[in-house]
């Protein structure tokens, strides 16, 4: 039932200055920020995985796509800055929520037990921190080329930066491959709880969309992990071979 006229109290609440800022700073606001930025990052991770699965289509296709991305110039930078902003907001909201939650129970239980929650849900801050560390390493490895400078300098026959051979050859080193696979397992755990959680936080209650809060997280997380693990694994065991010119 809709009531046409707002009460005086409601009108007063509506006119409160800084209402939106206060809402975003509240507990529900922080969680909403985490949910929205998390879904944004999830969209990036899916696109990133699909882009990189092109490694199975060969050197020319993969390096051509990399060259195309670089050719977009300012657009690429806008996307990068947007992505960085999502990341910073997501981590910032997570730290705020984590600290508030530590303060909400100062004395722990002597006998600890849980009935419904899972390992992934209980270790979000840890899996998040490990994924964060991995992202730093991943950027140093393949974006800034600092960990394997000799591979970063490779060129393919078309004269493009040989991203393909760089990726394939660096995954020939088992510590690199293993660290990528471990990071993907943790990312999978993080997303399996986070993606479903986001829709609960955003207030989905319609029975038609309940799957978003249940199977979606674990499903999309498994999909991402499978795709992302396939790449280093295929390079390591030799299904994907280095390109010509390398």
């Amino acid at each position, binding site marked *: 039932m809709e009531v046409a006229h707002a009460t005086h109290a*409601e009108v007063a609440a*509506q006119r409160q200055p800084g209402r939106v800022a206060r*809402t975003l700073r509240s507990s529900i606001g922080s969680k909403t920020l985490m949910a929205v930025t998390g879904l944004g990052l999830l969209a990036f991770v899916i696109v990133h995985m699909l882009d990189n699965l092109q490694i199975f289509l060969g050197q020319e296709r993969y390096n051509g796509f990399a060259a195309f991305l670089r050719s977009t110039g300012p657009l690429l930078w806008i996307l990068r800055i947007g992505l960085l902003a999502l990341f910073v907001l997501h981590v910032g909201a997570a730290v705020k929520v984590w600290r*508030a939650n530590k303060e*909400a129970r100062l004395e722990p239980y002597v006998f600890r037990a849980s009935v419904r*929650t899972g390992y992934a849900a209980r270790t979000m801050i840890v899996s998040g921190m490990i994924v964060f560390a991995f992202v730093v390493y991943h950027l140093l490895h393949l974006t800034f080329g600092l960990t394997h400078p000799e591979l970063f300098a490779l060129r393919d026959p078309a004269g493009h930066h040989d991203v393909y051979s760089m990726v394939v050859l660096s995954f020939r080193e088992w510590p690199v491959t293993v660290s990528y696979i471990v990071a993907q397992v943790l990312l999978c755990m993080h997303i399996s709880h986070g993606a479903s959680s986001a829709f609960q936080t955003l207030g989905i209650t319609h029975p038609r969309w309940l799957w978003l809060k249940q199977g979606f997280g674990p499903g999309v997380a498994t999909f991402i992990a499978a795709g992302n693990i396939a790449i280093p694994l295929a390079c390591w065991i030799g299904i994907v071979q280095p390109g010509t010119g390398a």
Partner: protein
Amino acid sequence: MDFTLHVWRQAGPDQPGHMELYQARDISPDMSFLEMLDLVNEDLEKQGIEPIAFDHDCREGICGMCSLVINGVAHGQQPATTTCQLHMRHFRDKDSIYIEPWRAAAFPVVKDLVVDRSAFDRVIEAGGFISVNTGSAQDGNCLPVPKDAADTAMDAAACIGCGACVAACPNGSSMLFVAAKVAHLAHLPQGQPEKRRRVLAMVEQMDREGFGHCTNHYECEAVCPKEISRQFIAEMNREYLKAGLQAH
């Protein structure tokens, strides 16, 4: 039946507490958990030891007064059951049982197993009501309530405000309680005029009390003696965001 009890003893709010060991002997399987504690207390009094303080009132599972985290689970392992309705037949003879108070910064320990839950009262005072003119009650049928709305409101109103949700939440969050109180009025026509103000005020009071933030573990739903659904939390999130982010 005999049990070994590990009980949290704390003389006062600012005193340090510790776990103390007691023996419960000759307990009937038909006793409730609180009746078992009554017997233990009689024993302690005979020995000149201060009895264990714990909250209780109706002992019918409807008042929300009893609490206790039993072996790490608020109200014990039996689903949809308050501590007063939990019977000793659900335990095995010679079991060790850990008994602790609700643990949350917003629920300070008063003594032993008794905690101060007045933070909940302040959340209700902030907006968990409807404003009506006093006088003779109007005819019930003047205000049509759709059956499904009445059912949903009743499901939320089943909350007895015991605080098990806070005790069970790894984050000490009271979202399930606040969500139930927001929802039971939001689904009824009487709750409409103050709907927006209510959700804003109650959530902000909840934050001020120092409850944690929900991170969707759903431990609250699992221990709730009245089986309040997590869907009410999603509903409150939505209502709060709608109310708080509205431009005018």
